[in-house]
């Protein structure tokens, strides 16, 4: 009996020490465990060689560069929309970077923290060209493919309700099933964040047969997420993104950072050297991010912008001083 009681207490105690130091764990493991999508070109998708690429993937790479000095030390976990929060809460991943919309419910009741916004998005619709639909207001009675466990599901219901229209929600678990359902005609419309519509469209056999409607029905600020209660780690992920945005603003890129090191501009000096110990990192943390992954503009361009098959305009994601709303607090 004594033995049993002793082991009971032991088990109860193991549960108690769960609140962990993610930074220490990452250093010990030698890699950052990052949750991404199961495959969404431009955001996070494995290329034909199995290398993960995308604007969300680059945040993970940035964190790995900052913490471990090597952007390649990331272990990716593909997650559907439904699985993502549980994976983060349970500690299966260190951070989630998976086109996840920042909402009050998610921020306040899931035990999670959003570390910023790496893409300002909004929900849109894609329809088959031969339906001849020009506006989302013509969609009354349509069957609509969506992905389970997304804000998309909720916005859709709101939009149709407020416009007094009916719809049939065909809900799938992964974006792969969603796009296939759309392609096969299971639904008339596919809805998701607009950027993702373009990403999904290039996966159709005949992308030119589908059109994206002009309406944007919601605000979808997408950003990386960490567990609540580990402020040190929260700061690191947050400032990794801020360093990328500040670098673009200051004109520091992966190609010129070597010369920029000699710059007399104090803001650039602060960005490239120093301040690391305040985050619990080495002083070359930001140098590593920018030299290995790039600044925000480079990341945007190569993954979703002009340099990518998606060719999405910067739009809202342009820097604040160039007509967009992308803005990061100063590094000082």
């Amino acid at each position: 009996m004594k033995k049993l009681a002793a082991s009971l207490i032991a088990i109860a105690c193991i549960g108690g020490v769960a609140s962990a130091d993610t930074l220490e764990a990452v250093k010990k493991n030698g890699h950052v465990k990052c949750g991404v999508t199961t495959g969404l070109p431009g955001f996070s998708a494995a290329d034909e060689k199995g290398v993960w690429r995308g604007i969300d993937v680059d945040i993970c790479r940035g964190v790995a560069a900052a913490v471990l000095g090597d952007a390649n030390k990331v272990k990716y976990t593909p997650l559907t929309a439904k699985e993502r929060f549980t994976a983060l809460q349970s500690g299966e991943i260190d951070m989630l970077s998976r086109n996840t919309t920042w909402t009050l419910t998610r921020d306040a009741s899931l035990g999670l923290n959003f570390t910023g916004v790496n893409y300002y998005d909004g929900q849109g619709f894609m329809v088959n060209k031969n339906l001849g639909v020009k506006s989302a207001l013509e969609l009354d009675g349509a069957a609509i493919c969506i992905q389970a466990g997304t804000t998309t599901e909720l916005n859709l219901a709101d939009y149709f309700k407020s416009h007094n229209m009916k719809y049939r929600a065909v809900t799938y678990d992964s974006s792969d099933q969603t796009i296939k359902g759309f392609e096969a005609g299971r639904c008339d419309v596919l809805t998701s964040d607009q950027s993702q519509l373009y990403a999904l469209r290039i996966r159709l056999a005949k992308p030119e047969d589908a059109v994206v409607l002009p309406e944007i029905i919601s605000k979808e600020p997408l950003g990386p997420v960490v567990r609540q209660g580990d402020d040190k780690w929260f700061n690191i992920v947050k400032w990794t993104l801020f360093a990328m945005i500040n670098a673009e603003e200051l004109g520091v890129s992966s190609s010129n950072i070597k010369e920029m090191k000699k710059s007399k501009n104090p803001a650039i000096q602060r960005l490239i050297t120093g301040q690391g110990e305040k985050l619990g990192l080495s002083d070359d943390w930001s140098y590593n991010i920018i030299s290995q992954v790039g600044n925000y503009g480079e990341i945007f361009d190569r993954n979703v912008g002009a340099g990518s098959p998606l060719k999405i305009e910067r739009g809202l994601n342009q820097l604040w001083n160039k007509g967009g709303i992308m803005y990061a607090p100063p590094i000082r």
Partner: protein
Amino acid sequence: MNQASNNNNPEKPSFFNSPQFRSIAAQALLLAAMGVFFYFIIQNMLANMEARGITTGFAFLHEKAGFGILQTLIPYSEDSTYGRTFIVGLLNTLLVSGLGIVFASILGFIIGVARLSKNWLVSHIAGVYIETFRNIPLLLQIFFWYFAVIRPLPSPRQSLSIGDWIFLNVRGLYLPRPELESGFGWMLAALAIAIVAVLLLRRWAIRRHYETGKTFPLLLTSIVILVGLPLLAYLASGGTIAWDRPVLKGFNFQGGITVIPELLALLIALTIYTAAFIAETVRAGILSVSRGQTEAALALGLTQTQTLNMVIIPQALRVIIPPLTSQYLNLVKNSSLATAIGYPDLVSVFMGTTLNQTGQAVEIISMTMGVYLTISLLISAFMNWYNHKMALVER
């Protein structure tokens, strides 16, 4: 140690040493220990979740869900609560499981009997069926029906159709729905009366058989009553049954009954897969009744049908029921594969979307597990009761 010597005295073991006390005490202690254990774990978990800022408790069940569900057997809208999504999901699970059990039993019995047929072709077709479908993983079969069979169907505008009544396309199967207000209501009432009449008739026939030995053509009369009465009602009401027929309006068919392709694929796959197992169970049951019984029955002058009905089947059922129960349980649990093709069952709607929107994993997963446990226990209880009823009455 000195207790061992006390035990040498067989006359009066002290109360505390008596086997009864010991066994009860041991069990009580174990139970208490388990209670404490689970209490500890749950408290610990709640405290940890609280510390991490994860909301706990069941208050979310009253919050507005705000998402659409493809198939709802009860009124549901985006304004309904998360609690309602639970019921909607549960009913969808029960629907596919219930239909699956009925169809799989029928098909399974037919195939099981066919397997024993003296006709070489029939028994071999049944054998191939069983071997094939039992050995292909169920998930693959679901994918096959959904992606390979239903997906290539034409779009709503090019639907396959039988007259203006039944339409089949990639969005599902559309059937006409009889409208209750018209003669159909009378027909339903007549059917209810017919069922009661048949049950009463059956009791009377059995009693008479026991008392006088005279048989009564029960099956034939029952069929006549079951078909005849509603038909009569139909004619009497002037033959007016209004049908709500599906028509193509805008994007989709409206009206009638819609069987969504997800339900269709899941139901077909579950039926065919489970029927293969049931068929084997049925075959084993029938084979378990020794050949001598049949010979004895025939020697007593019973006809072939009587032998089957009164000698073989009642005995075979005793062997069939226990494994059949576990097939039913499997079917219910397998229905949760629904989420793979987007059929809105409990796992997909509640443990999927609702969990994700609220983030309350522990509550939702316990509720879902509770449901499957309850369904399984209910099926077991029912089958136990039935088994008991069918069991050998020893005289």
